[in-house]
């Protein structure tokens, strides 16, 4: 029990962090989040744990630590933003929001590294981004990345990521039909998804149609802004959010769907992101209320069962689906609709793979440390396909499997369902 002491007024008034102190105070220091945190497990330092990071945030807010304190930056930078701590926390600490507020506050003092700024700038520019991914796609088509994937170091890993973005399934060709009775949906195509995982986007459209949704194009959409928000560039994220809200409003569909867990998590948080913007807050909240992950829509529809395809598969939950959106069962319901799959449980499937947006580019060593146990667990399953619904995870895990020589590939769950539907179409069912 403590003697009453005067608590200093917030040391950094007006910053995003200052507005988040209620969330910080919700932490009772119980430590339940420690074992959920990949960076704590990898490094064994509480400064790299949720509880420790919250303590750092609090010290910033209370003025115990300065905004330019290098250790604060180190430990906040090392956070994956996977939000596994949130689903472990009984006290309801909104860690994801705290992290964004902290990064935004720190970014006011110390700019993020050049690498990060360049990447974010790229994602914010639609034309440029398209050109870059088109080039990447062309490179992938040459087969060179697969050859260079075993090069040591970050470069080799980058090639491996690119190589692993190719779909492991043969192209499905069938015409999908449905009644459209479940309502109209617009797809957020996603910068990386449309660029490197177009097959998953087409599969999304076909499977939704097959499950009685109507697809409505939303032509003026942009990058969702998730990477910007996670890096502390809240303004950049807000700009993109406004554009997307307008674009999807114009499209007029009842729901907005995405197959990228990272994008989906932010779409569902546009309301929070723009809460202080009087002109946009209501529109943003309405938009977030309409956002869904594709697995949610498919699960709600049943979904229709396809024809048997035989693979040994294991499911890895993307953090932004599992922890941020708290969508746990739906992807498994999607897999349930595919006869013939041999499903093997993956140990710690709810743990981060270390991809975390552009984290693997910024903190490669730690990312690799977080990834290592994941690959070991996958290898034990003997699965040939690792199913996960997020582009970052698909590439991160895919690259590591390729480099480790594990005979398994990554695939989006919707693509598997699509393949099952295609098989059904072939067999004339």
């Amino acid at each position: 029990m403590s003697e009453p002491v005067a608590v200093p007024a917030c040391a950094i008034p007006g910053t995003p962090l200052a507005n988040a102190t209620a969330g910080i105070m919700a932490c009772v220091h119980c430590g339940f989040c420690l074992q959920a945190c990949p960076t704590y497990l990898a490094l064994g330092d509480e400064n790299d744990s949720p509880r420790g990071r919250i303590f750092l945030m609090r010290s910033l807010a209370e003025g115990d630590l300065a905004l330019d304190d290098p250790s604060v930056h180190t430990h906040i930078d090392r956070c994956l933003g996977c939000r596994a701590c949130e689903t472990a926390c009984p006290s309801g600490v909104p860690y994801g929001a705290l992290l964004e507020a902290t990064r935004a506050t720190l970014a006011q003092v110390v700019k993020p590294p050049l690498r990060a700024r360049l990447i974010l700038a790229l994602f914010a520019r639609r034309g440029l981004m398209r050109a870059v991914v088109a080039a990447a796609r062309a490179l992938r088509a040459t087969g060179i990345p697969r050859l260079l994937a075993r090069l040591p170091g970050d470069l080799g890993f980058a090639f491996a990521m690119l190589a692993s973005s190719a779909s492991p399934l043969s192209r499905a060709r069938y015409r999908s039909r449905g009644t459209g009775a479940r309502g109209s949906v617009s797809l957020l195509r996603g910068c990386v998804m449309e660029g490197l995982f177009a097959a998953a986007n087409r599969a999304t459209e076909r499977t939704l149609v097959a499950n009685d949704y109507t697809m409505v194009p939303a032509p003026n959409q942009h990058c969702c802004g998730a990477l910007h928000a996670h890096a502390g560039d809240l303004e950049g994220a807000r700009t993109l959010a406004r554009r997307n809200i307008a674009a999807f409003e114009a499209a007029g569909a009842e729901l907005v769907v995405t197959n990228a867990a990272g994008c989906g998590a932010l779409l569902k948080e546009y309301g929070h992101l723009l809460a202080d913007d009087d002109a946009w807050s209501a529109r943003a909240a309405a938009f977030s209320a309409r956002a869904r992950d594709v697995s949610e829509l498919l699960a709600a529809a049943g979904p229709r069962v396809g024809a048997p395809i035989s693979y040994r598969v294991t499911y890895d939950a993307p953090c932004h689906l599992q922890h941020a959106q708290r969508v746990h069962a739906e992807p498994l319901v999607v897999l349930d609709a595919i006869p013939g799959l041999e499903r093997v449980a993956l140990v710690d499937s709810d743990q981060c793979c270390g991809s975390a947006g552009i984290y693997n580019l910024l903190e490669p060593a730690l990312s690799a440390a977080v990834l290592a146990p994941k690959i070991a667990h996958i290898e034990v399953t003997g699965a040939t396909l690792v199913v996960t619904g997020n582009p970052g995870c698909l590439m991160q895990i895919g690259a590591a499997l390729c480099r480790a020589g594990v005979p398994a590939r990554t695939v989006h769950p919707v693509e598997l369902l699509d393949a099952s539907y295609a098989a059904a179409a072939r067999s004339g069912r």
Partner: protein
Amino acid sequence: MALHTETPSRASGPQPEQAQDRRGALIQTEALASLLAAIVGERGVLARPSELSAYSSDGLPGYRLRPRLAVFPHTTQQLVDVVRLLARKQCPFVARGAGTGLSAGALARGDAVVVGLNRLNRIISIDPLNRLAVVEPGAVNVTLSRAAGAYGLHYAPDPSSQTACTIGGNVAENSGGPHCLKYGVTLNHVVALKVILPSGEITTLGNADGEAEGYDLLGAFVGSEGCFGIALEVTVRLTPNPQGVRTLLADFTSIDAGARATSAIIAAGILPAALEMMDGPTIRAVEASIYAAGYPADASAVLLIELDGMDEGLDADVQRVEAHCLAAGARTVRIAANEEERTRLWQGRKKAFGAMGRIAPDLVVQDAVIPRTRLPDVLREIAAIAELRQIQVCNVFHAGDGNLHPNIGYDSRNPDESRRVGLAMRDIMQACIDAGGTITGEHGVGLDKLEYMPKIFSPESLAAQCALRDAFDPERRANPGKVVPVHSCREWVGA
């Protein structure tokens, strides 16, 4: 939360030994840091104040003390070398597991080094035939049970913090948990310890291969709160998973009725595996959390009762328990239909303390134990104290053992509320002592309960405890200033 650094924030009462004898100051901190780094590597030592802050509190963050340094050995050998170095430099140290302790026990004042054991987390071996496991001190409680699960065994002591706390911390605190009602606390499950004494000497206590003979130094070490040395290797007994389990949830419209049901079940000689109580405010905090368990939100109290053992005979006991609950006034008694529901009911209970963070920014918790027939009286008294002091108490506790956990949520930025909470804490503790109870059943004394020790022990008895400590740590360098308030000890004859 209070912003004390350096001195623990205690309203009054005996202060722990202050850092006035800064023996460790014999060596410059930077020099010590580099000697430690030579053992564990640069990344295994924290020296910056900003990075030491994370180690300035445990699960009871009303206390903050910033350590001098923190060091994280990766191997047992490194740990041994660290302790021996600290011995040579006469530097005080504090072992730290996961820092989930609830008595400010893992805090190190400014002259002491925190020795973090969380990286020593291997399960060294499991012997399913003899139901023994050997683990490193930093192994997390639940990981041991998971590993033992492959053999149909588990590690029985299950503190609510089991997903986070370490076996070393459990040994140091003699931790309990819901299932300790039937299966016993940590003490009853540790068969041998390899420890390093503060002097740097390594010794084995207890006997994993048979009966132990001589003084029960193992029993003395378990629960010594890090003041006797550091456990390097822990041999524990594993328990077979029960064949059958029945989990009951009884809900009551008054705490009193729940307390009466508890007393009646225990007095009837039924020994449930666990018998836990949660009151209304606790239930509502849990139901608002991610661990919502489906407790009736309008109840004033629920009892979570688990019976286990052979399938045959279990249902007869279930019926008796049910009858006692109904006779005491339970509205309903529900039995978990499957493992999923059982897990959910337990998750809600185990995360209840954490869930209270949503009630108020600050939280204090007590840990008194009272005779079980006194439960109804003492709970009534606690309610009266809460009313008098105008504070909110949430009760969630091991009712079957009479081990109370009144939690008080408040806002430390409100000085008047803080003062009233302080007074209520003392009133509650006094009520428990008057009922024939003790001040802590499983969280330990640490810094938090030092002031109450003289209320239950005479100066001679306190001095005798110090004398035992001195047999292990004559220099009193291991976790200095904890457990026994030396100022209230009498001079010890033998010392």
